[in-house]
């Protein structure tokens, strides 16, 4: 079987200046995920590593660099699924965690549940000794500017410097 790792960033009306960093981010993620397979890792290991790589990249809307909610806070959602067993793990409305996808994998592998959300997910993260970042550690300047523009324009989706009114939609 010839292995493959395929990754994506956000779908939307990405402005031209954001194209190079976003393309660079997905290229690195695909390579990192594939390296996991070359070292004997599983498909689950590979998708986790690829997503973790993008969660660390400020130009992607996940982990560090996530967009902000109306209160200026990062709230993240993530999921992972093992096609061999159809086991799945998901987290929703989690904060101050660098890699939500790894917490989702813990839900999949260490609980009888599919999804944990909000305070319950955060409590589970503490039980799993997941590192808690200081409040606001995942908030970037770009994300703050985007929220300011969002509020000024009355709620249209907007990227920093975008001349068009629609940015990434999710």
């Amino acid at each position, binding site marked *: *079987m*010839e*292995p*493959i*790792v*395929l*990754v*994506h960033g*956000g*779908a*939307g*009306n*990405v402005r031209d200046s954001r*194209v190079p960093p*976003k*393309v660079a*981010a*997905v290229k690195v*993620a695909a*390579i990192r*995920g594939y390296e996991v*397979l070359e070292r004997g*890792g599983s*498909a689950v290991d*590979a*998708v986790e590593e*690829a*997503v973790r790589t993008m*969660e660390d990249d400020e130009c992607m*809307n*996940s982990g560090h660099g*996530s*967009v*902000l909610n109306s209160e200026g806070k*990062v*709230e*993240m*959602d*993530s*999921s*992972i*699924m*093992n*096609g*061999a067993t159809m086991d*799945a793990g*998901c987290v929703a*409305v989690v904060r101050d965690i660098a890699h939500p*996808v790894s917490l*989702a994998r813990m839900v999949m592998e260490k609980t009888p549940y599919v*999804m944990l*959300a*909000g305070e319950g997910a955060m409590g589970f993260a503490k039980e799993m000794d997941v590192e808690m970042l200081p409040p606001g550690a995942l908030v970037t300047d770009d*994300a703050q500017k985007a*929220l300011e523009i969002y*509020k000024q324009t009355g*709620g249209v989706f*907007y990227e920093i410097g975008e001349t068009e009114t629609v940015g990434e*939609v*999710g």
Partner: protein
Amino acid sequence: TVGAVALDFNGHIAAATSTGGLNGKHPGRVGDSPIIGSGTYARDDVGAVSATGHGETISKWCLAHSIITAMQRGADPQTATETSLNQMTDKLKETAGAICISKEGKVGIGMTTKRMSWAYRKGDELVYGIDKGKQEVENV
């Protein structure tokens, strides 16, 4: 939003998706990314999908499951991905993108948005793109 699908040397498949969601969203809002069958789905006997885009729309369409179901009925991954996305956008008037691999390692990449960054490595090839219908290839 970011996501990944993979097929390993043993023929096993997986998918994952992660997101900060919508800019300016209401606290507590949850999109499609953590919903199995909407933002993420994987079955060894069919394939795997990760989606991105307007979360409420993807959730209502059960996009990932829709693509897998089309493949299960015989569509190739590219056709399944494009068809499901186009049907969703035609019906619900919002946009999205998705990536997909089949159990044989064939690729599907689609979007009803203007752009979605994507890349895959298979063997010594790194294939990538961001504009609809365009791709580049590098040897690694």
